[in-house]
């Protein structure tokens, strides 16, 4: 007996050690990946300093001008390298997806893209202080930067929910949705980034040709090709459905719901939901909700929250409410999806609204209907019967004076829930 006990204790300790090791490995991998992100531009800056492509004639320019010029160039290096990295990190590279949450990756992308843009601005303004540049350099640089800026503004308004609490933003999104400016259109527009990348790439090639630095040209060319390759392969994977077609995280998705659509997208219905839950606009179908869903793992995806969200986005009111397809009632309201959603979308509240509609159309489960009838008739979901009252007094518990049923009924009637007629019908 004692030996057995010891054995079990050992097993458990091994499990804990294993878990701890796993956590440590994950932590180390994250550190390495972040180090790559932050140190590579530093190395390239050192390379640049060493290469010193813009040799100043000390008689022509003062030392402080040279310092400003080199500093401005280094801002440019960071801006360029991070521009490439910021695109690469959201092209579903497994190494990144396995080690960072979608939430973190997106936050990182948003913040660092903004920082890169700021560095780009610093680069431009500092270099303009130090001399005059040819039009080609100016045009390509400014064009790239302006495209990035407009896309960033669009993304902050329409693609992330981090600032959703701002009232004006909600209104803007609703009006945008009304003129068919939906999330997916934003996603397509966001691809214009590649045009900006190209413009900036040309900008650097001209600049380093002028400075006649082959090494820097090679480095910049390499990063451009890497980014282009990452972007194209990401689009190919998606177009050819080599991976789960839509989502990053949902292990159950076999195909899109589009083939099962039974009605034209009901935009008015979507807008009604959006009005109550503004975060809904920015669902990009990553499937993080399904990944963590306990009902999804047991039903092997027959129930999965991402699928319901897709039906919502496609405005499939009839499918969801009348046909229970997919069945929103299999949600156990455990709220894990709400907690994990990288876009902070209140999924359970959306499901509640759909379920409320099901009740109105008569597709809610019988036990739920019975429960609300019970509350309407007794004020309690489980009435206090004489046997239970006896048991309560046996246990020395005080008598319960629960709510006056008439009061509850007039309250519920006022809240648009009148079940008294149903009951009379039943009695007849």
């Amino acid at each position, binding site marked *: 007996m004692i030996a057995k006990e010891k054995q079990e204790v050992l097993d458990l300790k091994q499990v*804990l050690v294993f878990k701890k090791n796993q956590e440590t490995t994950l932590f180390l991998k994250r550190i390495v990946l972040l180090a790559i992100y932050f140190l590579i531009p530093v190395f390239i800056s050192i390379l640049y300093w060493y290469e010193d492509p813009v040799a100043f004639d000390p008689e022509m320019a003062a030392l402080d001008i040279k310092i400003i010029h080199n500093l401005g160039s280094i801002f440019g290096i960071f801006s360029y390298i991070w521009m490439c990295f910021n695109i690469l990190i959201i092209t579903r590279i497994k190494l990144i997806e396995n080690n960072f949450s979608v939430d973190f990756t997106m936050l990182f992308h948003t913040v660092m893209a903004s920082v890169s843009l700021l560095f780009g601005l610093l680069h431009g303004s500092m270099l303009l202080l130090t001399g005059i540049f040819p039009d080609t350099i100016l045009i390509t640089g400014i064009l790239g930067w302006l495209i990035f800026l407009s896309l960033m503004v669009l993304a902050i308004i329409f693609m992330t929910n981090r600032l959703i609490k701002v009232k004006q933003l909600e209104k803007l999104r609703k009006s945008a949705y009304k003129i068919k400016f939906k999330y997916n259109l934003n996603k397509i527009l966001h691809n214009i980034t590649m045009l900006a990348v190209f413009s900036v790439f040309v900008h650097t090639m001209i600049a380093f040709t002028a400075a006649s630095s082959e090494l820097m040209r090679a480095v910049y060319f390499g990063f451009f090709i890497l980014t282009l390759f990452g972007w194209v392969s990401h689009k190919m994977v998606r177009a050819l459905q080599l991976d789960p077609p839509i989502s990053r995280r949902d292990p159950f998705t076999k195909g899109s719901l589009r083939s099962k659509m039974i009605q034209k997208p009901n935009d008015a219905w979507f807008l009604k939901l959006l009005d109550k839950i503004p975060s809904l606009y920015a669902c990009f179908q990553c499937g993080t909700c399904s990944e963590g869903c306990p009902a999804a793992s047991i039903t092997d995806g027959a129930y999965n929250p991402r699928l319901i969200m897709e039906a919502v986005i496609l405005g499939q009111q009839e499918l969801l409410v009348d046909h229970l397809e997919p*069945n929103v009632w299999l949600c156990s309201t455990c709220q894990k999806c709400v907690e994990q959603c990288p876009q902070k979308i209140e999924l359970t509240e959306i499901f509640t*609204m759909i379920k*409320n509609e099901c009740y109105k159309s008569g597709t809610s489960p019988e036990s739920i209907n019975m429960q609300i009838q019970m509350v309407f008739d007794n004020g309690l*979901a*489980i009435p206090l019967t004489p046997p239970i009252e006896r048991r309560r007094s046996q246990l020395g518990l*005080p008598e*319960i004076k629960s709510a006056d049923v008439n009061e509850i009924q007039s309250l519920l009637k006022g809240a648009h829930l009148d079940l008294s007629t149903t009951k009379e019908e039943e009695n007849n």
Partner: protein
Amino acid sequence: MSNNESLKVPQDKQIIKQSNKLGEQTRTGYDVFLGCVIASRLPFLETSARKIFAKLGIELHDVDGFSCCPDPTGIELVSHSAWLALGARNLSLSSAGNGIVSFCSGCVETLKGVNHAMKKDHAVKEVNKFLGNIGKHYDGETKVTHFGQILYEQLEKVKTTVSKPLKDFKVAVHYGCHYLRPSEIIQWDDPFEPITVDAIVEGLGAESIPYEFKMECCGNPTSKMDKDLSLLMAKKKLDAIKKTKANCIIVVCPACYQQFDFNQKELNKTFGTDFNFPIFYLSEAVALAFGFTPDELGLKFHATRVTNFLKEINFTS
């Protein structure tokens, strides 16, 4: 318990700022909100809860006229506005300085959820239009607390009150969902790495055993639509607990309690498993450690027998 050290729940989480305000909340007391399941189906859970609060010197006031909370996994799904109206009415009835304490995670989620909804202006108007029909008013100010939170905040006092440590209780703690989530509404423990109930359990002299799927749902709410799915969800958890050396389960929510206590036999029949875990409500475990006897607590009303278990581990003779 040679391995107690390695399994200690970390105490240094930043998320819980209010720790151990000993005696501070004992004077004015709480209004107790029982809810339907505990009051009308599982009154023995209420017995233990009342006893431990009395022992800790925390005053509980009974309020006349409470209705169903109403159920966040039931009524809210039928009519959000009815849920809001009933919840706000209940909250408007409380007058105790510390607000409401409930022994049910579902009631806590509903009442906190209604308060959360009332942070929006239009909800305040809507709610008071409903309440106006019955001559009531609610401004959204009633504080709501889960009894587990009070026990954790008074953990030092709980520890010193323990007279019969729960030696050899190897506990699989099941937090359930609504004790933690949505964290924006509940504003208490960490939604995925909670520590409070483990800390209370360890404070009683028991051992908290880690297990896979600890954070998964018990499956109770899905039984309204699909009984099989609901049972499979419970089975997944019980299977995981079976793989450890845990010998009992502690829960903090009556829905989870019913799911595990009532369904083990059915699971055994359907799947040929041999689950026989005694299910203790957190309040029952605390009451046992405070020296109350199983008879006083009405433990005989459990569907999965606990008396044999208590004898086996020599807790009772």
